[in-house]
């Protein structure tokens, strides 16, 4: 059964002065899925998320959200979205309880009990000022604040940046569990391939503001391979060159194609695939 679309970006572009942050970017995120948005630093991930939360507006292109074509994200739509930023800028004097009271008053769907449950589950102290919390606890508090309004869509901008590996794993596990229980659509950006592999069902790869891939992780893994040959070889129709001798094709193509003698077709890890998409220099893959 075809899942309905939570939001989509069609040909969205955005410039900051002379710098093009997004260049005709298109994405389609389905309801109830966890979507990993992979890209290098400066690829345009944060700009995309800022457009989705309404902080920025696109210069051109269209946005569909919850079945509506919109020009900008209105307050009403924002009330359906939870947002976890890279470095939460909470008021330093506010405790988790204070933040809950303040943020809760802005969302009609706010669930105080759920917020309290999330604080307990995520092990966030209620009465400690935010300036006294560690980076990891702040991120967890941010997640609790985002989820307590029972959002239809949870946007996260590199939420685990700055967390140590243990804290990152804990955070991701709890996020996965919460998503399983609530069925919220999650769109998160990251430059950590392992994290995306662990959490996401579908993935989008962005490079220099352009979408290079969008689809299922397994399909991605099956469709991208490295061709190792003695002589120079260019595969025929149906193969798209990603970088050097890394090609992408329908998984069935790889079995049906004819290869020169001595050729080796190697599958790649998701990290190598990401590197092939994301790197812009001439370095070859291992």
């Amino acid at each position, binding site marked *: 059964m075809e899942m309905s679309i939570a939001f989509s970006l069609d040909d969205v572009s955005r410039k900051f002065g002379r710098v093009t942050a997004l260049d005709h970017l298109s994405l389609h995120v389905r309801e109830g899925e966890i979507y990993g948005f992979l890209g290098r630093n400066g690829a345009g991930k944060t700009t995309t998320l800022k457009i989705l939360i309404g*902080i*920025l507006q696109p210069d051109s292109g269209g946005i569909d959200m919850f079945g509506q074509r919109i020009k900008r994200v209105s307050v009403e739509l924002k009330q359906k979205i939870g947002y976890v930023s890279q470095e939460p800028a909470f008021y330093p004097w506010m405790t988790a309880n204070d933040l809950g009271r303040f943020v809760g008053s802005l969302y009609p769907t706010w669930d105080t009990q759920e917020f309290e449950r999330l604080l307990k589950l995520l092990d966030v102290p209620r009465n400690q000022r935010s300036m006294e919390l560690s980076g990891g606890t702040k991120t967890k508090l941010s997640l609790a604040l985002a989820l307590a309004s029972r959002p239809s869509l949870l946007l996260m901008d590199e939420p685990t940046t700055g967390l140590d590996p243990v804290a990152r794993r804990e955070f991701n596990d709890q996020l996965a569990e919460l998503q399983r229980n609530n069925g919220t659509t999650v769109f998160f950006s990251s430059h950590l391939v392992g994290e995306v592999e662990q959490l996401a069902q579908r993935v989008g790869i962005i490079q220099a503001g352009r979408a290079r891939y969008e689809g299922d992780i397994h399909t991605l893994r099956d469709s991208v391979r490295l061709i190792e040959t003695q002589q120079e070889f260019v595969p025929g129709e149906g193969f798209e060159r990603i970088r050097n001798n890394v090609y992408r094709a329908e998984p069935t193509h790889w079995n049906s194609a004819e290869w020169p003698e001595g050729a080796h077709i190697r599958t790649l890890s998701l990290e190598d695939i990401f590197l092939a998409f994301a790197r812009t220099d001439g370095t070859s893959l291992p």
Partner: protein
Amino acid sequence: MMRSLWLKDWRAHRIVTLVSWFLIFGLFAATMYRLRNAGSPLDAFRGLVIVSGMVLPFVFVNRLVVSEYSGQTQFFLETLPITRVTIVLTKWMMGLTLMLIPLLICFAIALYQAHSHAVITAPQLYWMSLRWFSFLLFVYSLTFAIAFTGRYRFVAWGALFFAALFVNEMAQLPLDRWPPLHLALSDSVVYPHNEVPWFEIAATWILIATLLLATLLLSLSKEGSIIAGLYARMSNQEKVVLVIICVVMAAAVSQVEQRKPKPPFRLQQAMNSREDLPAVSVQHNASLNRDQAAQLSDELALTLKDIQAYLQLSALPAVAVIPDASLDADVFMLASMPQNDGLVVRAAINSTGFDRSSFKSFVLRHVFEWYSNGHGVPEEQQWLLDGFIQWWLINNDSQKRQMTLRATVADQQFPLQLNMLTNWMTTREQLGDCMSDAVAWGVVSNLAERIDTSSFKSLMRKLFSERPKPDARYWFEKSELQKELTKVGVSMKEIVNDMQQKLQADQSKYAGAVDNLHLLHVQFSANRMRGKNYEIKYDIGGSGKDNKEVFSIRYQELEPWQGELQATKLSRVDALDSGVLPLTVQRGARVFTATEMRSDALQCTVRAGARRWEVK
């Protein structure tokens, strides 16, 4: 949404707000009490509006805007379902409300009080309220808009301050006449009448609208990225550039006075000095005929010309003399002229006892004051200037004998010490002008005899011919007295020793004349009256019971940090016996008191018992 933001900001800033309100109420109560005898209780409210109008916007805007954007917490707000316009307008409204609440309460109290003094009609109340509100809203909007210049806000305030000073100087339009300030500072707001300052109100509201528009532009344009950028930290290069700009601006403003010379004062019905002499004009009137006026103007002009040539002064002020028979012979008065350049002196030129030499000395002292661009001569050099003026003016032996006698009497009162010269203002305050001039004359005459004529001339030129800078550079100039004295081979210690020896010799030489001088010893005391008020009594005691001579009491209530006391500004009471000064002071007030007597033997007014003291 606005309510949520409002509650959040109230929780964050309630303590500061309540403390500010408490201080405002305290200030209002104190001002009401202090101005309880003023014409209207609204006078106290005006004072409050001016002070709080300057302070409260800073407090609230700093708390609501600066702390939000410098802490970058606006990024958190922007991710929540609130628009930027809502954020900015809520803060604007909240700051304004928090500022107005205590002022409205104070206004109501002042109105209630004023109502019992005078009838205030409804239209008057309406216009008065509009004037206060317009002024406060303008100051608040300005502070709010400047807060949105981020890290440049202090620069913006500085630029505004310098621009106001600059325009004020260039346009000679006093600041309190500018529309927003005029609304609150003018007396017509306290003592309302039916004339409505339409122009000021309209101009103020146009400024308010402009400032609000600027605020919205700064905060909303480019999706808030401008304000976020403006609140980023200042780089080292920026800091250097800003310091340079500040120095240039300060220098530019300090040059304003130089660039815009004030017109010279023109005296009507005056006889002017010859064209080849410095400009001196003397008014002719009933007490001074045309010939006498012409003679005095030429005489004064010649003195100025000679001293200018001797010291090589680069400029001289135009001097105007107004004969005034109503003044005492030994009283000379200098007019205050904020709009004109030059010196205007009033004196009883033709009256009995008028001392032409003292008069010229008075004029020359103020010529040097003018020449110093109002800075005056450094205190450690002042004795030298006073002495030089006397040395220049005293020519004949009889005058020299008189000066010697005066210096000898002064030495009896206060034996000469080195610190009397270095703290010359205190010495002059103790001895009075006449006697201190004699001491200075003695010291300078000795100095002139000790070193050769050309050295003395070059020393005087070096110290007095270089005009102090009229701007901020003045503060970096240092007194060169010690260095210049060393150059001519003399030290301060030697100068004082010489004078002490001479005075010792003169003490015995003029012993008879000095002993015949009769100086009253007057005691001053503060007597408590009703409440906290005190009156000041002067008592000539037993020794003065048979006194037949008129003596004067010179007095003044001192301001905090009061510096030099000008003889012309001291109050004076003439008396024959003990009495009470026409002055009421409060406990803790500081006063200056001294007794002065005219001495025929010295041809001089002798001051005694001068002191500054606290009323207890």
